[in-house]
């Protein structure tokens, strides 16, 4: 039987079932017990028609409810609840979904604009097409962001009215600029999208530039609201002793002292930086997942080549943004420590310490997935075999670093195991759980991934630079020096006190950052006008590479959800840390197990919705609908065409 007929039949059956159920309900109500007709008629004549028992019951309930409502004085609600799910989980899921879509909508224009600009400079149309392909995802995602933003706002007003009112007391002057900027963002976004090919390249690039400026400004305003909740004040050296002091933006009772201090609060800029980088990494991974989805659907070699390239670019963007992300995270964590040691200790050594073991697993998977994709990608280029001998060493380095980073300081052990180990920490392995080892592992991970990228970049190309040997050796020396310095500080950290050990993270970070910059600066002229030793066969990669891209996007999304939990959960029982106490039944930090369940559900909802976005975005490439041609008895098609 034709599938369409089955679907139609199911629809008809469902419709008939609904009608039948309504009719049956109506029949039962109409035939409930009534007084005999003659008695009712007599009562009706006297104006005393008796109600059926059911009607009487309903009327009594209504009267009781009304009486209760009249007797109850009006009270300002502090909290309201949602049955089954709870108010906190409701707001949590809505906020996370809003943030995920917002991150995507802010990130895609950023790299679409850069790709378009590269295409404009290089005069290559394929970049322009690629940028447009990325931008196609924005329209529906923007609506999703706005929808979940509205859900979140109503959720806060309904479920946390008193706290929301307090935030309005502090930040109401920022609301109008926010709305105006949102309007401008819609204007620039839709003119950027629909104006593709309608404006000159410079004008169109200007629209893209403005879209990014406005989008970033919106994020900065929203970040002020949320960071105020964590650090309600700024840092300044008030007493002139050279040590920054905390200047509260509100009085002890919570009254606003300075909107400027509330807005430009302690953790505002660290969050801004962290979010911009994380958004780009996340947006790149989701765009790469879209390309993978389209690649797996593609029927022609041309389509496969296009979406393979798109996936590569999306993943490239994600990795490039991902490499400095741990540094931005370190800066944010250091600022949280600087603001409040209590918050910092809570984060790294208290309730949330085990969360970072899960974070390590996620980031390790991201590095593995990104490297795996790059290694598979070498197969699409002739001459890739030359570099594949390095892959096993990179894999060993990455796996070792992953293992070190995921090693907890304190093991989950039974009583007998604790007795055997002489404590809750393993006598040898617990050394790997310390900050020295973890900082070293993540820095080597970053260096290794960058090395994978360099190998990929060189596959199928031969430098023609006159000093290629010297420059390549210089790169090797820089790379080895950075790795040696990172390892040195990692080992030396075990022989110094904690205050000194924490400071060792800074030279580790700077040496890796410097190595990345120097190696890149050398690599650009080294491979400029390089001789192509082989052709890049876009579209000729194993399908599993595309699943790897989707896995990376999933891991990024999950990671964002997890880090959202720790950022918000750090405040513990405070709505605004140290100022507004949470007195609701949810005023406790949920367990990690519960949090990961909420994060997982959120990720599944997001991927369900992003699947809709992908599907809607892919409709543009499909053929227009045409009525089916039906042959008549003379073998002619409707419309006069000959069969």
């Amino acid at each position, binding site marked *: 039987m034709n599938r369409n007929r089955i679907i139609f039949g199911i629809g008809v059956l469902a419709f008939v079932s609904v009608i039948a159920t309504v009719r049956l309900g109506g029949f039962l109500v109409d035939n409930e017990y009534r007084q005999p007709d003659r008695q009712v008629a007599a009562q009706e004549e006297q104006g005393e028609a008796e109600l059926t028992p059911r009607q009487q019951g309903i009327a009594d309930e209504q009267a009781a409810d009304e009486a209760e409502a009249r007797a109850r004085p009006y009270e300002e609600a502090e909290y309201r609840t949602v049955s089954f799910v709870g108010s906190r989980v409701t707001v949590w899921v809505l906020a996370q979904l809003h943030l995920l879509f917002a991150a995507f909508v802010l990130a895609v224009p950023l790299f679409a604009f850069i790709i378009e600009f590269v295409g404009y400079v290089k005069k290559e149309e394929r970049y322009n097409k690629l940028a447009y392909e990325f931008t196609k995802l924005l329209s529906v995602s923007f609506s999703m962001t706005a929808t979940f933003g509205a859900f979140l706002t109503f959720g806060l007003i309904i479920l946390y009215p008193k706290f929301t009112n307090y935030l309005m007391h502090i930040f109401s002057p920022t609301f109008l600029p926010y709305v105006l900027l949102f309007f401008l963002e819609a204007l620039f976004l839709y003119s950027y999208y629909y104006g593709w090919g309608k404006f000159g390249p410079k004008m169109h690039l200007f629209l893209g530039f403005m879209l990014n400026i406005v989008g970033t400004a919106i994020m900065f305003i929203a970040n002020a609201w949320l960071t105020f909740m964590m650090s309600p004040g700024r840092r300044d050296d008030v007493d002139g002793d050279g040590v920054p002091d905390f200047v509260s933006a509100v009085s002890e009772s919570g009254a606003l002292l300075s909107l400027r201090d509330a807005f430009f609060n302690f953790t505002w800029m660290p969050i801004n930086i962290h979010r911009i980088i994380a958004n780009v990494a996340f947006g790149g991974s989701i765009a790469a997942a879209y390309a993978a989805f389209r690649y797996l*659907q593609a029927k022609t070699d041309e389509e496969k080549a296009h979406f393979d390239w798109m996936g590569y670019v999306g993943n490239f963007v994600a990795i490039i943004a991902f490499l400095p992300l741990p540094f931005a995270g370190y800066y944010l964590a250091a600022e949280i420590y600087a603001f409040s040691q209590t918050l910092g200790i809570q984060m790294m050594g208290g309730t949330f310490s085990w969360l970072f073991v899960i974070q390590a697993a996620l980031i390790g998977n991201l590095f593995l997935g990104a490297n795996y994709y790059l290694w598979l990608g070498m197969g699409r280029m002739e001459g890739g075999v030359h570099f594949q001998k390095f892959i096993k060493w990179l894999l060993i380095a990455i796996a070792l670093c992953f293992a070190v980073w995921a090693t907890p300081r304190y093991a*989950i052990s039974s009583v007998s195991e604790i007795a055997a180990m002489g404590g809750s920490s393993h006598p040898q392995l617990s050394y790997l759980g310390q900050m020295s080892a973890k900082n070293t592992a993540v820095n080597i991970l970053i260096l290794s991934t960058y090395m994978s990228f360099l190998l990929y970049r060189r596959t199928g190309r031969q430098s023609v630079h006159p000093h290629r040997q010297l420059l390549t050796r210089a790169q090797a020396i820089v790379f080895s020096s950075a790795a040696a310095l990172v390892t040195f500080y990692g080992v030396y950290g075990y022989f110094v006190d904690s205050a000194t050990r924490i400071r060792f993270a800074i030279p580790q970070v700077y040496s890796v950052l410097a190595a990345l910059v120097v190696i890149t600066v050398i690599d650009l002229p080294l491979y400029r006008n390089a001789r192509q030793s082989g052709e890049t066969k876009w579209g000729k990669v194993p399908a599993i590479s595309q699943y790897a891209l989707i896995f990376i996007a999933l891991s990024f999304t999950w990671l964002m959800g997890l880090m959202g939990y720790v950022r918000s959960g750090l405040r513990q029982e405070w709505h605004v840390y140290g100022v507004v106490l949470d007195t609701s039944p949810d005023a*406790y930090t949920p367990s990690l197990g519960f949090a990961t369940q909420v994060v997982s559900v959120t990720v*599944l909802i997001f991927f369900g919705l992003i699947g809709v976005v992908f599907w809607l975005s892919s409709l543009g490439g499909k053929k227009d609908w045409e009525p089916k041609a039906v042959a008549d008895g003379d073998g002619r098609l409707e419309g006069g065409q000959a069969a």
Partner: protein
Amino acid sequence: MKLSVPMPLRLVLLVLGTTAFYMYLGQIVPQREAHPPPPVLISAEMTTEDLVAVGAELASGKGQCLVGCHTVGQSGPLRYPDLDGIGARAATQIEGLSGLEYLAQSLYEPAAFIVPGFADGMQPIDQPPISLSEDEMKAVIAWLQSLGGTPTVTLDTELGY
């Protein structure tokens, strides 16, 4: 016969499998709900011994003293000074300050004196987010005095803050 799984099903399995794996990781680590510290009642008739007991409770609860910051009786790399013996040491830490005055200063103005070898970082615990009341501060000081010394604080003791 080669079993072929359709692409949409593979995608669904990948999404569900990856999410389930990460969720499983969240279930196997130690689970703890962090509840706000319970209120501690201090009544006017409490003796010094009573205050020591209340102070011990505050140190590991609302005061957050022993929650990842200070330790009692530990050695090795420490984040902040170990408190073992502080009751006896307090009187000799700063010249001109009695033990009681030193302990009060370290709670109300922790940045006034940093023990050599350690970094500044403690916040005044009479202020938010810890916000101990004056009576609660006295209880904590009584507990600190009891660590290697003789507690003397009562609710009538003037702390000078």
